[in-house]
């Protein structure tokens, strides 16, 4: 994986010094909270309901064991012994003191990490496929391109005061595991008819209160123009994105109101101009970055069979292991969704365990997924039994990836100052319900996503089943949505009808699941059945 050189290290060190000075000036009263707010946000620091929350960037979700150990230590030293992995492949701490934040950032910098631009109206941490470098179906490893974009977008002087936040995702296979088209810019690395590698740009997607699937803006941007084209996309947005209403300020609204063709035309114009400015790093820089993402030294002649005599182990393999491009290996997903647990949370001890296991079983690498789990990308099939035993000891062997218990949930009203309703207790009750009734496994792939407010951090629009928490005359109420997908068959979920109270929404999810179980045909997932039979049968069951 990528390793900082002296320049990269100096940049994060300087950033820590800068933020330390900004914090000092704030604490000395030399700037107002309004002036300080965007500065702390661009260092990942939010003021939440009970305390400051700090979001640490995990670029394209990739971590080594040293970094994971450091994240565990930070949970211990500055928080209450746990961290929360997020839908943008980052990690958040919920109980941070402002005075200690500069020291925390300094600790991160020691392991080549930072919290730069994890919040605020700027280009955020770049996300990617959690199986990058491992997936059999990828064209190339997308992470070198994401790293190139990370450096370009970090401290970009023109784009630190955008109309609104800006999220970029880079993938390199037709199977979308990163919700690419629900980003402000989604980039798919593709090969053109001439056999050259380049980038397809999808611009103007997003969730939030106005969900949109990003349209294709340009089919092919040559690799040696990737930064220049990105800069053109951003400049048109910075100049024309709406600033009169923060709810209409995302680029999706601009692209929608302007029309994708007109947006694309203006980008082309800006692009032609910027090509003359020589702002593109040479291809040698991309090649330099690529050297850090070469395959580890995979062994050959490995067994492709694990001992499946233990039923629980076999179930876990079927649900949590993903085929690898190299014979004898799989990518293992560690579920952070134990029955009744808080989705995405890991304790200090669990983070240390995962770090150790990444080192021992996966070439010192792990990944954070947008579904709030952790991946060990390169595990020998012959060592899976051993690994499973160690995960089980640490409470990390839940076998439910992409099943109904593998719930994406935002922090909700338990932590978040924007939330209208709690997400965590609903997630806990649903996972408990489906563990008790035994239907979880029978249901197969069923992605359930819960947001505690319309901002959609829990991706409810993209859930096969989505739940949106709203405030109904002072009480928490939950709307049910069906039919969303964040994958390559991207679709937006639709609301079933009137909402439910907390107990009611758990029943409603079970009723919807039962409709599927009664109506599914061979091989159909919940989503497929919904798409075939439509909303009506579900409505009948829910509101009869």
């Amino acid at each position, binding site marked *: 994986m990528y390793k900082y050189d002296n*320049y990269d290290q*100096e940049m994060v060190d300087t950033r820590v010094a800068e933020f330390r000075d900004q914090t000092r000036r704030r604490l000395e009263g030399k700037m107002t909270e309004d002036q300080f707010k965007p500065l702390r946000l661009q260092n990942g620091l939010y003021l939440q309901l009970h305390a400051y929350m700090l979001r640490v960037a995990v670029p394209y979700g990739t971590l080594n064991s040293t970094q994971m150990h450091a994240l565990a230590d930070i949970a211990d030293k500055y928080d209450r012994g746990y961290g929360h992995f997020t839908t943008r492949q980052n990690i958040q701490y919920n109980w941070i003191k402002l005075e200690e934040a500069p020291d925390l950032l300094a600790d991160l910098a020691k392991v080549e990490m930072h919290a730069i631009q994890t919040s605020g109206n700027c280009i955020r941490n770049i996300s990617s496929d959690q199986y990058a470098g491992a997936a059999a179906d990828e064209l190339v490893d997308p992470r070198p391109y994401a790293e190139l974009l990370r*450096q*370009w977008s970090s401290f970009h002087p023109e784009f630190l*005061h955008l109309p609104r936040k800006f999220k970029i995702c880079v993938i390199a296979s037709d199977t979308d595991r990163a919700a690419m088209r629900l980003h402000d810019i989604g980039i798919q690395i593709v090969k053109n008819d001439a056999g050259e590698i380049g980038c397809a740009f999808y611009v103007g997607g997003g969730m939030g209160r106005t969900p949109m699937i990003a349209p294709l803006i340009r089919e092919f941007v040559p690799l040696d123009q990737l930064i220049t084209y990105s800069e053109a996309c951003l*400049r048109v947005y*910075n100049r024309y994105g709406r600033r009169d209403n923060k709810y209409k300020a995302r680029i999706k609204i601009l692209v929608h109101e302007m029309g994708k063709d007109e947006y694309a035309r203006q980008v082309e114009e800006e692009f032609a101009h*910027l090509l003359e400015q020589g*702002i593109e790093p040479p291809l040698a820089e991309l090649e330099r970055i690529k050297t850090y993402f070469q395959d580890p030294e995979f062994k050959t002649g490995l067994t492709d069979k694990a001992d499946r005599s233990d039923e629980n182990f076999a179930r876990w393999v079927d649900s949590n292991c993903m085929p690898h491009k190299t014979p004898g290996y799989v990518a293992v997903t560690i579920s952070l969704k134990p029955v009744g647990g808080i989705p995405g949370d890991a304790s200090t001890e669990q983070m240390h365990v995962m770090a150790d296991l990444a080192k021992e079983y996966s070439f010192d690498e792990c990944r954070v997924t947008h579904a709030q789990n952790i991946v060990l990308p390169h595990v020998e099939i012959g060592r899976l039994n051993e690994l499973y035993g160690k995960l089980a000891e640490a409470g990390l062997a839940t076998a439910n990836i992409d099943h109904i218990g593998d719930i994406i949930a935002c922090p909700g009203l338990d932590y978040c100052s924007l939330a209208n309703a709690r997400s965590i207790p609903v997630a806990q009750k649903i996972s408990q319900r489906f563990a008790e009734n035994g239907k979880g496994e029978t249901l197969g792939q069923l992605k359930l996503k819960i947001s505690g407010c319309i901002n959609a951090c829990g991706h409810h629009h993209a859930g096969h089943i989505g739940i949106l928490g709203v405030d109904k005359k002072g009480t928490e109420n939950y709307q049910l949505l069906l039919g969303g997908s964040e994958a390559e068959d991207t679709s937006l979920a639709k609301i079933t009808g009137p909402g439910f109270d907390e107990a009611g929404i758990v029943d409603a999810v079970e009723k919807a699941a039962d409709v599927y179980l009664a109506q599914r045909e061979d091989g159909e997932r919940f989503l497929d059945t919904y798409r075939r039979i439509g909303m009506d049968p579900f409505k009948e069951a829910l509101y009869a």
Partner: protein
Amino acid sequence: MPDNLGTSPNEVQFRFREDEVVDHPAVTVDSFLDQSNAAAVRIEPGDDTRELLPHLGRIKLVEVNFPGFMDGRGYSAARVLREAGYEGEIRAVGEVLIDQLAIMRRCGFDAFAPADMLDETDAERAFGLWDNVYQKTTDGRAPIWQKRHG
């Protein structure tokens, strides 16, 4: 439309130019485009900077106004001017704060007339904080990728 809305030389707190401080009253972009003799113009966030490009030869001062520091359109305005070859003064006016100084420099601003005077020591630190940069702009600084590859 009120003209003569520009800042005066004594309001300029920081300047990175050798030439004499420009002391023309700045006019709005609309007024500028209507007049043939104006030499100073003030860009507001909603103005289209590119309308000025045919007239760069007669402009001695561009003021870019930041009515609120969160509105970042002025950064693009300055870069568009520099990329078009404008070499005159670009003065940041309005809500200009310590932590915007370095990035404004990167975008081509070379004079600063903040509505509220800034602490000199803090400002000096801010201007000199970053030894290196990741992006190429028109400020002449070699980005890190250029240093890596010579």
